[in-house]
C-alpha cells in the first residue's frame, strides 16, 4: 500500500531529477561607475528549466540578466567582474565572439520592439546576419518554424509582408520571441516580457514559455509574483544587489527560508 502511494507521488511532475547546469555564475559583481549594483552573485541556471528572477525595483535582477549575454558591455560605465560560464566556457573570455554569444543567449525585452520592417524580415534578420540561412527556401523555413514555435504562425501566415509594428502588443511580443528563436539560441533571457501586455496576451506568452522550455533554457525577470509562480521551476530572489535566496519555485512561494523573500512575496515591503 505504502509503495503504491510512493509510486503515485513519484509520478508527480514536481518530483523530478535534477537537470544539468547550463549557465553558472560565481561571485558576479557589477559597478555602474562608483555605485555597486551587484554584490557577488553565485547562481546556477539549469538546462531546459525556467528560472525566474524576482525582487523589488533596483535590486539588480535586470542587471544580472544583462550580464548573462554581455548586454552590459554596451553601457560604458558598467564594470562586470566574477565568472559567468555557458556550458563551462567563460562568456567574458576576451576570445569570445560577443555577437555569437548573443545568438546563443538571446533576449526578449519588456516592451515589444519589432524592427520597422515586415513580419518576414523581422524573423530572418538574425539568421541572415549570422549566416545561418542562405537560400530563399532556407529563410522561408526558418520563418515558418520560428513563428510556429512562437505560436504566431496561424495568426500571421497570410500577411508576412505586413509591418511587424502593425500587430497587437501580444503578437508583437511573440514576434520578438520568434525573432530570438530564429537564430537557434540555447538560452533565452526575458526581461519582464509581459509587463506591457493584457491578461489574455500574457496568458498566451506564459503558455509559450512553458512550451519553449522543452528546447531552450529560459531566464525570466518578472515583477509579477503570480507569473513567477506559474511559469518557473526555479526562483531567485534579489534584494539590494544581493541574492537573498534561490530554490525550487514551489518552495519559494509556499515556504521560503529568507525573511526578505517572505516579506517581498507577501507584500510586506516593496
Amino acid at each position, binding site marked *: 500500500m505504502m509503495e503504491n502511494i510512493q509510486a503515485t507521488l513519484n509520478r508527480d511532475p514536481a518530483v523530478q531529477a535534477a537537470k544539468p547546469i547550463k549557465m553558472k555564475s560565481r561571485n558576479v559583481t557589477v559597478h555602474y561607475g562608483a555605485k555597486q549594483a551587484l554584490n557577488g552573485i553565485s547562481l546556477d541556471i539549469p538546462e531546459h528549466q525556467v528560472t525566474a528572477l524576482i525582487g523589488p525595483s533596483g535590486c539588480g535582477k535586470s542587471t544580472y540578466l544583462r550580464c548573462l549575454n554581455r548586454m552590459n558591455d554596451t553601457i560604458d560605465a558598467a564594470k562586470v567582474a566574477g565568472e559567468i560560464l555557458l556550458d563551462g566556457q567563460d562568456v567574458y573570455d576576451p576570445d569570445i565572439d560577443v555577437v555569437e554569444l548573443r545568438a546563443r543567449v538571446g533576449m526578449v525585452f519588456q516592451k515589444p520592439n519589432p524592427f520597422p520592417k515586415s513580419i518576414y524580415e523581422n524573423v530572418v534578420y538574425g539568421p541572415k546576419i549570422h549566416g545561418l540561412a542562405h537560400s530563399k527556401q532556407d529563410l522561408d523555413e526558418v520563418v515558418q518554424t520560428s513563428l510556429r514555435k512562437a505560436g504566431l504562425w496561424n495568426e500571421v501566415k497570410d500577411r508576412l509582408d505586413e509591418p511587424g509594428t502593425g500587430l497587437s502588443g501580444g503578437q508583437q511580443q511573440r514576434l520578438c520571441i520568434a525573432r530570438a528563436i530564429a537564430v537557434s539560441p540555447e538560452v533565452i533571457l526575458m526581461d519582464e516580457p509581459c509587463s506591457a501586455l493584457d491578461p489574455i496576451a500574457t496568458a498566451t506568452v506564459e503558455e509559450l514559455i512553458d512550451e519553449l522550455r522543452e528546447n531552450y533554457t529560459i531566464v525570466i525577470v518578472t515583477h509579477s509574483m503570480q507569473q513567477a509562480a506559474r511559469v518557473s521551476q526555479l526562483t531567485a530572489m534579489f534584494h539590494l544587489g544581493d541574492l537573498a535566496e534561490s530554490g525550487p519555485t514551489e518552495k519559494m*512561494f509556499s515556504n521560503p527560508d529568507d525573511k526578505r523573500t517572505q516579506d517581498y512575496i507577501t*507584500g*510586506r515591503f516593496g
Partner: protein
Amino acid sequence: MAEHIVTSYEDELKFIIRRISEMGGQAERMVEQAVSALMRSDWGLAQSVVADDLLLDAVQREVDERAIRTIAKRQPMAIDLREIVGAIRISNDLERIGDLAKNPAKRVIAVHEHTQPMQLVRGIEHLADLALDQLKQVLDAYATRDETQALAVRDGDEAIDAVYTSIFRELLTYMMEDPRNITACTHLLFSAKNIERIGDHATNIAETVYYIKTGEQMSAERPKSDVTASLAHSDLTTPPPPGAAGE
C-alpha cells in the same frame, strides 16, 4: 512579522483569524455545556447548545466566504496563504465539533428517561474533560502559533482513545448485565463516540497549526489507541489485563 503594505489586506487577514478564535471559544463552551446537560439532565441547557450550533455554522460559512474573497482579491503567498487555508480547515473542524457537541445534547431526554446508575455517566465526564483539555490546548497553540504545543496535542489524543475504549467495554458489560440498560447505554455510547471524535478534530486542528507555522505537514505516524473497531466478543467477556486499554 511586519504588517502588509496594503492595510485593508492586513485587516482582512486579522478579521478571519479573530473569527477563528471566536469560533474556538464558542465550540469549547458548547462541549462543556453539552456534557454538563448530559450529567445533570438539564434539558434547557441542552436546547441552548442545539441553538448555538446554528450560530457556529453561520460563522463557519462567513469565514469560508471571507477566505475565498481574500484569496481571489489578494492572491496570498507563503505564510499568508497558509494562514488562510489553515483558517478554512480549522473553521471546518470547529463547525464539526459544534455538531458533535449538539448530538449528546439532543440525547439528554432519551438517556434520562431510562434510569441508570450515575457511574455510567462518570466515565463520559472524564472523557469530556480530556477532550476539552485537548481543545483548549490546541486553541492556545493556534493563538500563539506554537508548533510544539500542537505536537503535544496530537500525541495527547492517545489518552482519549484509550478512555473511550474502556467506556465502550464498560457500557457493553452493563448491557449484558441487564437488557433494560441497553437504550440508555446505547445513547451514552453514541455520546462517548461523539466526544472521542471531538478529540480527533482537535488533532486535525493541531496538524493545521503545525502546517501554518512551519509550512511542513506533521509526520504521518500518529499514536492510535481506539481499538474498539477490532474488539472481539471474547475480548469483552474476559476483563482486559491491567494497562491493556492503553496499548
